[in-house]
Every structure is written in structure tokens, then in C-alpha cells.
């Protein structure tokens, strides 16, 4: 078990800097999810921790040891890859044993550990099969088994579930979480799926364009997103953004409607309201010209525009709502769930 520290980490390919001064402390036994859109540098960051990519500048430590110059083999880590990366010419048993065999661990010990990991992952009956004879979910388990048997200080997951179908993904997500809690191994998990990130991580590092936008618990990110990007990325359906003018604790929307909020700031801001925080209220300040409904069963998503403007807005209403297309429905939101961002910098404006 070990903590991981990233200090002023930079990665550049030639003159192109792809990761900019990443800072982060990961505690022993913590499950960290790095999340962000494609090309934000999250996989590169993970591969730098693994030692598969060189560090341009800055420092990575695992435990108390700076590992910048260490080979992946000497970092005591295990990694699970998106396409599983099982050795196709080896049986499941050989795949799992390979890392131990190369470290010259005694045969009996290898057998014991492989058996143990196979039991945990319930793949005991497949040990003599080749990877191509297994389904996607089974292969994923083997890939995790290969990581577990090594008993490493750190687990690294590089989008391990994105090749699985939706149902299996949810199931494996839970299993990974349970497994990590049971083994207590420090883990870093990379994904582009915000639901996966929210459900798995003790803490989330949101990466965008090579910058850390925010690093905190899922609830912190949901309740107090630090930037417009995090606000839009975390939560589903994503947050509504309404341009507004702030003055003396009042926000004036594009159509002249006002809501209280914005604290002491003055000038152009962006008001963020999550769809689930818009309450149906006949006297509410926010009017929505309804365009269509999406029935999700438990709730209904109302799509429309802010009355008198063309700013799109989504509201989530409990139960079944299906009448009112073309009309204007009114909503209100509590001041505590409003998020105000500086329109120019996209940074959160604290009350």
C-alpha cells in the first residue's frame, strides 16, 4: 500500500505541452478517478504514473520514493487496460502467473496466488482456456486477476469497462469497487464516463485540455463545481447555463426576469441551475417555453427555451408529465442550489 504524489507534473511531445503542471496527493488506499473528455490527457497521466510514458518535468512519488526514472517493472504497480491486453498465446492461468514467473517466485506460491485470485473473481473454471475462448466480461476479470495476483502497491485502470455492454459495465463497476474496498489498494482509474467516475471514486480529478479543473469528492464536485467545465461535465442531464447580469445580489436573466443570487459580484455572469433543482412553481421567476418531453419513467425531462430567448433549458420533473407542449411553464429554484460563474473566466463566484 502506498500514497502517490504528483508534483508540478508536465508532459510535452516536442514543443506541444499536453499536461500542464499537474498537482495531486493521493492517500494510501484511496480510489481516485481521473475523468475528462477524449484527448484531455487522462490516459497520458496514468501512463506516466505507470512508467510507460516519460516525465518531461516535475515529480511522481509512490510511497516515499520518487519513481520518475524507474522502469514500470520496478514501481510495484499493476495495470488493467481497455482492450484487456491479455497474452493471446497463453492460457488464463499463464496470463495471471506471468508477472510472478518473471519475478522468479516459487511455483507453489504462484499456484496458490492464482487460485486465490481466481476464486475472488470466480474464474476458477476457465483457468486452462485461452483468452479468445472467453467473453468480454470474463476477459476483463482475467485482466483484473492478473493485477491482483501481483499484490501490488497501486492499481491503475485505463478505461477498463468501455469495451463492455451497458449492463455488464454496471455490474463490473460494482465489483471493481467492492474488490478495491476489500483489498484496500491505492487505485487510479481513468474514464470518460462521469457516472462511472461519480460511483467509483473516493475523489475525482477532472481534467480538461491538460489542466486539472477540480480535484475533490464526487459530492463536492456536484455541489460546488469550481468551473463551468466541471459544472457541465458532472451530473446528468447536465447543468443549464443561463447568461445573466449581476448587480447588488440580484441576477437579471436575458429576458429581464430576476432571481436573487450572485453575492457581491457585478457584471456579466453565467447562472448554472441543475435540471433536478428546477421546481415547478406557478409564481416562479423562470418561464420555460416547452418544446418537448422525454419520458424516463421515474421522471420526465422537459426540454425548452427560456421564455423570450433562445437559451436552451432542461428541467427534470418527478413522475409523468406529457401535456403542455407549446405553452410556458414556470419554475423556481432555491438560492442554495444556484451556481454563479464569471462569464469571462468560467470560474465559480463564491457567495
Amino acid at each position, binding site marked *: 500500500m502506498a500514497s502517490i504524489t504528483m508534483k508540478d507534473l508536465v508532459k510535452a511531445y516536442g514543443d506541444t505541452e499536453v499536461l500542464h503542471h499537474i498537482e495531486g496527493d493521493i492517500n494510501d488506499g484511496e480510489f481516485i478517478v481521473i475523468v475528462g473528455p477524449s484527448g484531455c490527457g487522462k490516459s497520458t497521466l496514468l*501512463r506516466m504514473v*505507470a*512508467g*510507460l510514458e516519460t516525465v518531461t518535468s516535475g515529480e511522481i512519488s509512490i510511497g516515499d520514493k520518487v519513481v520518475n526514472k524507474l*522502469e*514500470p*517493472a520496478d514501481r510495484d*504497480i*499493476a*495495470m488493467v*487496460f*481497455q*482492450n484487456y*491486453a*491479455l*497474452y*493471446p*498465446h497463453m492460457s488464463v492461468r499463464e496470463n495471471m502467473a*506471468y*508477472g510472478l514467473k*518473471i*519475478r522468479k517466485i516459487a511455483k507453489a506460491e504462484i499456484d496458490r496466488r492464482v487460485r486465490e485470485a481466481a476464486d475472488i473473481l470466480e474464474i476458477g473454471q476457465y483457468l486452462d482456456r485461452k483468452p*479468445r475462448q472467453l467473453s468480454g466480461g470474463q476477459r476483463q476479470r482475467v485482466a483484473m486477476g*492478473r493485477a491482483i495476483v*501481483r499484490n501490488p502497491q497501486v492499481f*491503475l485502470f485505463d478505461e477498463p469497462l468501455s*469495451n463492455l455492454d451497458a449492463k455488464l459495465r454496471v455490474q463490473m463497476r460494482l465489483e471493481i469497487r467492492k474488490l478495491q474496498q476489500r483489498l484496500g489498494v491505492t487505485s487510479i482509474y481513468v474514464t470518460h464516463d462521469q457516472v462511472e467516475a461519480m460511483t467509483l471514486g473516493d475523489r475525482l480529478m477532472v481534467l480538461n485540455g491538460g489542466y486539472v479543473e477540480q480535484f475533490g469528492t464526487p459530492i463536492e464536485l456536484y455541489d460546488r463545481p469550481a468551473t463551468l467545465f466541471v459544472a457541465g461535465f458532472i451530473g446528468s442531464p447536465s447543468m443549464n447555463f443561463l447568461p445573466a447580469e449581476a448587480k447588488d445580489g440580484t441576477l437579471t436573466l436575458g429576458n429581464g426576469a430576476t432571481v436573487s443570487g450572485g453575492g457581491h459580484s457585478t457584471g456579466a455572469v453565467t447562472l448554472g441551475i441543475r435540471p433536478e433543482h428546477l421546481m415547478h412553481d406557478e409564481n416562479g421567476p423562470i418561464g420555460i417555453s416547452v418544446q418537448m418531453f422525454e419520458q424516463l419513467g421515474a421522471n420526465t425531462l422537459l426540454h425548452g427555451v427560456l421564455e423570450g430567448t433562445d437559451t436552451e433549458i432542461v428541467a427534470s420533473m418527478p413522475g409523468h408529465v406529457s401535456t403542455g407542449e407549446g405553452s410556458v411553464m414556470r419554475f423556481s429554484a432555491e438560492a442554495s442550489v444556484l451556481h454563479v460563474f464569471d462569464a469571462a473566466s468560467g470560474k465559480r463566484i463564491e457567495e
Partner: protein
Amino acid sequence: MSKPAKRDRRILWAASVPMMLLALSCVYPIYFAINNALKDRKGYILDRFGLVTDPSIENFVTAWSRARFDEYFFNSVTVTAGAVLALLLVSSLAGFALAVLRFPARKLIFGVILASLMIPVQVVLVPFYQTIVALELLNTRIGLILSYTAFFLPFSTYLMTAFYAALPRELVDAARVDGAKFLQVWWYVMLPMGKPALLTLGILNTLYCWNDVLISLLVLQDERTLMVGIAALRGEYTTNVPLLSAAIVLGAAPIVLLYVIFQRKIVAGIATGAVKG
């Protein structure tokens, strides 16, 4: 019979006849060689093309013992086996390095290897011969093994590089995280995964080395390889055609045998994808 069926039949015939002639042109020399190898000289002169009436293996015995084909055969087997092993070993290592490792001038080196593919052997014969002499490798089997390896290596390296470059990179990453050093990655992962390509190269290079006359004639001047021995059987004024035929059959047999043994593996090797998604 209806009209369309009649027309189909005509097309079938029009395609089949040239095909059959083509097939015949391939099969006939083989028949000619085997048939005449079984005749004696008199029988051959009296009837060149007719089926052998009194078959005898006299010519094979003569070729093997009196024309020193036993020695030639041994030379060919040693040199071919040595060269093919060296080729597979070096091209697999080089392919691994060029496809997977990142080092300076990697593209340049690959470019030079590709360029050397375009140079015919004949063009470099003189400097090649001088090099062999300077290295005191003239008339040694090891010299011929090294020569074959040098001449056929560019293609082998190119093929292995292309093959390894198509494998998912994560396999190498996974092995490195598992604790393998680069040579271990090659030995445990790349070499076994390269089997289909190595098998193809093994067959091709065996053919090239076994059938070569030119390089062998230059390097091994005192001793001979099988193909040089066969070529030497042709006299300026007379040729003992039955003896030559027997020698040809002896020379071709190992290759045919090799193909029969590996045929199924070759097909299976090509059919099995290295990685299924």
C-alpha cells in the same frame, strides 16, 4: 438443353482449356524429371518422352554416391538451416525493436533497410566477394550462412516490423508492467505472437537459400551445395539427362516434404488472428 445453359458451358470450356494448359506446363517438367530419372541413358536416347519401361533407381544411387551428392546435400542442409535460423532470430529482434521501441533515427534505419530491398544481388557481387575474401570466410559454410542472412535479412526485417507494428501496443505495456525487461518481452510475448509471420518467413527463406546458385558458387568454391552440384552436371557438349533428372528430384524432395509437413500449419497460422477484439 436450354440456350443459356449451353452458353454457360461454352464459357466454362473457354476458361478451362487455357487453365488446363497452364497447369500442364507446371506439372509436365515434374513428370519429365521423375520419368527420366528412372530410365538409363540408352533408354532415354531411344525414347525421350515415352513412359519409362524398365524403371531403375540406378541414377539416384550414382548421383548420391559417385557424384558426391551426399556431401552436397549435407552442405545445403547445414547452410540453409543455419541461415534460416539466423534470419528468423535477427529479423524478429530487429522487427521488435523497429516496431515497438522508441529510439533516435528509428525511421532512418527502417528507411535504409527498405532501400536495401531494392538493390539486386548482382549489383553488389564484386564488393560482396571482396568482403568475403577480406573476412577470410571464403570456402567456409559459416561464410555462406552469413551471406544468405545478409542478403535476405532486409525483407525478413521489413515483414516482421510490419507484423509487430500491427499488434496492440498494450501487450508490450502489459508485459512491462508485469515486470518484463525488453528482452523478456521479446522472448515471452513477441516471439510466440510472431509465429504466423515467422512460419511464412521460414518457408520463404528456406526456399531462397536452398535454391540459390549464384551466392553459393561464389562463396563455396571447393565444396558445393546441392543446386551448384546440379548445375555442374550439365556438360558443354553432352549432358547425362537421366542423372541430372535424378539429381533434380533429390534436390526438390526436401522442399516438397517440408511443404507437406507445414502446409496445414501455414494455413492455420494465417487463419488465426493474433488478437480477437
